């Protein structure tokens, strides 16, 4: 009988300590997300299945995404993530895309009708132009995320691997 008493007293004491501990040490998770986000190529291309690089970083932080879902990051990106998160280096998952050389979108200005759909689609504001006027892509700002290709009605944007 005394055994059960001892065990329950012990359990209560430990439970109390842990209760206080969880309030003293609130979990903060974003410094890890920040570290992961810094390693991602920031193309915001959503090829990894998440709406941007930051959501993918959050998914990686709480473990429900794998490190092989980022084609723009390529093998170097995967190696960096594996080093940070101490996981085995695995090849890029072809389901999310294939590693391609760095490429830049170029608008064939003659055919552009100025519909501003690509401006709205570009996540990093790399395309400038006014409605009904010619649009063009700023060479240095474009991250090659290919999000502007589908919305273009006249399909006048093509992808050029870095010259």
């Amino acid at each position, binding site marked *: 009988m*005394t055994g059960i008493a001892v065990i329950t007293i*012990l*359990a209560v004491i430990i439970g109390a300590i*842990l209760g206080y*501990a969880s309030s003293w*040490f609130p979990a903060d998770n974003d410094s890890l997300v920040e570290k992961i986000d810094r390693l991602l190529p920031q193309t915001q291309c959503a090829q990894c299945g998440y709406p941007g690089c930051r959501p993918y970083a959050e998914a990686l932080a*709480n473990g429900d995404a794998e490190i092989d879902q980022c084609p723009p990051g390529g093998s170097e990106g995967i190696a960096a993530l594996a080093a*940070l998160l101490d996981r085995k280096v695995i090849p890029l998952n072809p389901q999310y895309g294939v590693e391609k050389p760095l490429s830049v979108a170029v608008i064939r200005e003659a055919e552009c009708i100025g519909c501003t759909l690509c401006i709205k689609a570009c996540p990093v504001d790399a395309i400038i132009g006014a409605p009904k006027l010619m649009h063009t892509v700023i060479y240095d700002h474009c991250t090659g995320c290919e999000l502007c290709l589908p919305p273009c009605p006249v399909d006048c944007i093509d992808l050029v691997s870095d010259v």
Partner: protein
Amino acid sequence: MTGLSLILLGTVLVNNFVLINFLGLCPLMGTSRQLSTALGMGLATTFVLTLASIASYAINSWVLEPLGLEYLRLICFILIIAGLVQFTELYIRKSSPLLHSVLGIFLPLITTNCAVLGVALLSIRENSSLIEAAFYGFGAAIGFTLVLLLFSAMRERLETADVPQPFRGTAIAMISAGLMSLAFMGFSGMV
């Protein structure tokens, strides 16, 4: 004083917990891929081990033995160690979330880690006072951390070695651990 230093020397080098008594091998293999994680794991284990050794000795000699409840020893120790590990996990989650996510399953695993429970049980049999139990636990933890750090530095160097395909990864780590324990055999009989 020499008694305590002998205990320390004994647990750290001579019958090192990992390489001579072969306790705590899974965290050795699991967290030693990187030096930073190995350091984190070593510190966490040191904290848990030292306190566990003290607490288990205290509980045993002041509560269980007077009440004649030696048969409850195992349950109490597991309870104490689990509490300590949960405490450490909360602290690590707050202080460095990277270490928390990298250690992942190995952090709660300290509870069921044979080295920790081994120390708790052995420290009762071998020590006669609380101070000795503390040094015993601390020595065991230092021995564990020392081997873990050396081993992870070794594995990092092996990452860049041109190891034949079938031996890559854990296989070469196992061989290196074997050679390390071969080396630690040199200490046998010293204390």
